[in-house]
């Protein structure tokens, strides 16, 4: 059986593919934003909250880290309705994505906070600053700066991970690809195009993270140097 690659019928649907890519992008952006915030809040609670709170956060992180995203997604979309929680596909998808990234982000930010030397806090106290201000300026911000590379590469993985939500009927890039595939039967060509689009998204987001990091942290460093 000889097979000729034919991209015509796939590229005829390029508009839909780009729409799908746009959905992937905004879902990824929302996930990264909410997941990072969740991770930062939980990491602070994890390092300075009450014992029960820490235990719960540990449990959450372990569940996220040790079960596949697909199963988490199915559990939320197909399983939760049995106990009366019914979410739209897009809601279930975002919940699952944020739940997942949040767990990893918690772990990453926690490691960053714990890597800050306690002496830094004492130095702040000796300057007579309030505890929270010290915590914010001396612990949280430097910790975030330190874990920024890990957090951004985790975020790119989260962006790529959105492809899995095609499985619960969310119409993002992979789902659009699947639909075109089922209409044209040009599976290989479709997935080549999809893959190229994802690569573009991944490289663009890596670039964006690099620029944001440059802007956010080099400015801080310059200010810090002046102060």
């Amino acid at each position, binding site marked *: *059986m*000889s097979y000729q690659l034919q991209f015509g019928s796939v590229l005829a649907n390029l508009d839909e593919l780009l729409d799908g890519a746009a959905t992937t992008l905004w879902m990824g952006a929302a996930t990264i934003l909410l997941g990072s915030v969740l991770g930062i809040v939980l990491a602070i609670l994890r390092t300075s909250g009450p014992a029960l709170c820490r235990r719960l956060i540990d449990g959450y992180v372990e569940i996220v880290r040790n079960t596949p995203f697909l199963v988490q997604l199915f559990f939320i*979309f*197909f*399983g939760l*309705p*049995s106990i009366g929680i*019914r979410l739209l*596909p897009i809601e279930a998808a975002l919940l699952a994505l944020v739940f997942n990234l949040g767990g990893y982000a918690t772990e990453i930010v926690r490691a960053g906070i714990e890597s800050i030397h306690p002496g830094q806090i004492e130095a702040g106290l000796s300057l007579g600053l309030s505890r929270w201000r010290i915590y914010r300026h001396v612990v949280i911000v430097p910790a975030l700066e330190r874990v920024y590379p890990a957090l951004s590469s985790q975020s790119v993985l989260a962006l790529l991970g959105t492809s899995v939500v*095609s*499985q*619960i*009927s969310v*119409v993002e890039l992979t*789902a659009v690809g*699947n*639909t075109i*595939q*089922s*209409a044209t*039967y040009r*599976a*290989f060509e479709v997935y080549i195009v999809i893959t190229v689009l994802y690569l573009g998204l991944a490289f663009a987001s890596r670039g964006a993270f690099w620029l944001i990091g440059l802007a956010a942290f080099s400015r801080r460093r310059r200010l810090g140097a002046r102060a």
Partner: protein
Amino acid sequence: MRLKFLTMLMVAACALNATAARADELDDILKRKKVLIAVQTDLPPYDTLDANNQPVGYDIDVAKRIASDLGVELELVIVSGANRIPTLVSGKVDMVVATLSPTPQRAAVIGLSSPYLAYSQYVIAPSAKSVKTLDDLKDLRVGVTRGTLQDDQITRRAPKGTQIMRFEDDSSTAQALLSGQIDASAWGKSINDEIIKKNPSSNLENKFALNSLYGSIGLRRGEPDLMRWINTWIFVHKQDGWLSDTHKKWVGEDLPSLPAF
């Protein structure tokens, strides 16, 4: 431990049993003494899992009989509604026996046999929803399995405003219906009956007939000998009543009369 590991690798390596470009698939099947048939397991009563989680159903009996009539071993490859045709086209199986309805679009991509199955597709929805015609689907969330005839029918015929949600396989679509994630879907009547019977608490019911459908066995294009053999096989077992008996065994009623191409 190391030995076990090597065995695993060898299993994986053996899976790469490259079959070179063939002159005639029927000869190939007879020569290798094995036929690879794609079936689904998520459309009871046509195909499902038994209590030991083995594939069973009308399609599976058809696949078994094809193998035994060919006098070769049978290897079942489980596929989903959405990847039936790609699996066949990419050469992973010899044929597909999975409630595959003939359409002109499909016939341009694969070879389709004369029908071996006929059924009516019904819209299924909760009793509480008043759904009597296609127009009533407006504003409802209707789930379909991507790339199936269900998808094609609903996409083409449902009124504007219908929210069509596409899942990757029939089991996901059925799960979505039962979880209340979608308001309606459509399968063959006996499939719907099966879902309703298993889940009395979901209060689902058959609403209206969407269409009458036939099922063909799918082959790759350009295999005239194998196609002739399959059509002969269907003709013979229509005549001797085996297809109808098997249909009755799984679906509980006689097989409607089957035209030939």
